[in-house]
């Protein structure tokens, strides 16, 4: 794996975009009666990084984004940070698998699976952290909210890729 200057710069750009989305999203409050439901906008950037550069760089972007986002938001090493980290890792694993190893899903399906994987990973981390299996009652809520948010972010990414076909805005990212 070669770390060309161009790729480092574009990965850094993706990390910056992901961090910005992560932080802004933390400021938005969704009118939901339950805590922990987020749009997962930062997932767009992770999926884009996997799409452009592959699994390892996608994971790098996801990890750096969570790290920087938590430092900026003042949540570093808090329980919320640990949950976000586990969620980001599990969703990156699932999305990279679906994107690179299967070809029957569009970005919508992949992002949906990523959102659900994020929520499940988060839930497992929460049950380890609280040493209680009672959080499992949160599972249906998180599954059901993961589906529409996943579709939304997948739809955004789909339209970005659609736009790229005519404008070629992503060309610079992958040019050698």
């Amino acid at each position, binding site marked *: 794996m070669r770390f060309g200057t161009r790729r480092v710069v574009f990965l850094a750009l993706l990390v910056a975009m992901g961090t910005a989305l992560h932080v802004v999203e933390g400021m938005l409050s969704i009118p939901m009666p339950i805590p922990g439901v987020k749009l997962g906008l930062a997932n767009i950037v992770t999926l884009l990084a996997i799409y452009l550069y592959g699994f390892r760089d996608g994971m790098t972007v996801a990890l750096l984004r969570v790290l920087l986002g938590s430092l900026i938001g003042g949540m570093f090493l808090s329980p919320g940070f640990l949950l976000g980290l586990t969620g980001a890792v599990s969703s990156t694993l699932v999305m990279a698998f679906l994107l690179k190893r299967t070809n029957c899903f569009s970005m919508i399906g992949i992002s949906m699976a990523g959102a659900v994987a994020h929520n499940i990973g988060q839930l497992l981390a929460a049950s380890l952290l609280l040493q209680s299996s009672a959080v499992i009652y949160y*599972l249906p809520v998180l599954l059901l909210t993961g589906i529409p948010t996943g579709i939304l972010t997948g739809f955004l990414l789909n339209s970005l890729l659609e736009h790229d076909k005519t404008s070629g805005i992503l060309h610079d990212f992958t040019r050698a």
Partner: protein
Amino acid sequence: MTRGDKFLLAGLLLISLLSIAALYGRFSFFPDRVGPVRAVVSVQGKVVRTIDLPAASRSSFVINGRLGPSTVEVEGARVHMHEAPCNGKICVNQGWISHPGQSIVCIPGEILVRIEGAAPLDAVTR
């Protein structure tokens, strides 16, 4: 959306509905067991009477406290101090108690009525 997306969507929806059914169905079919509940009456620290709750019928009995006889009344799952010889009548005015952990205390008569048993948890925090 591709066919794969639709299958994934349907699968995820199915799993969420199944998990809702599994998790919330558990409560209706296997409610959390509540242990036996009883009212324990003690005078000057010694247990003088225990009553299993809920009682079959309304009944009252006389407890001989330090000041004289007091009347404790049981009705269904709840207990109260019906009559007491003390001045303040705080125990009488407290009214009915029914939840494990609640108690009626009569300081002048040195009578304690306490409901014992495992209560279902309100919440757990760590």
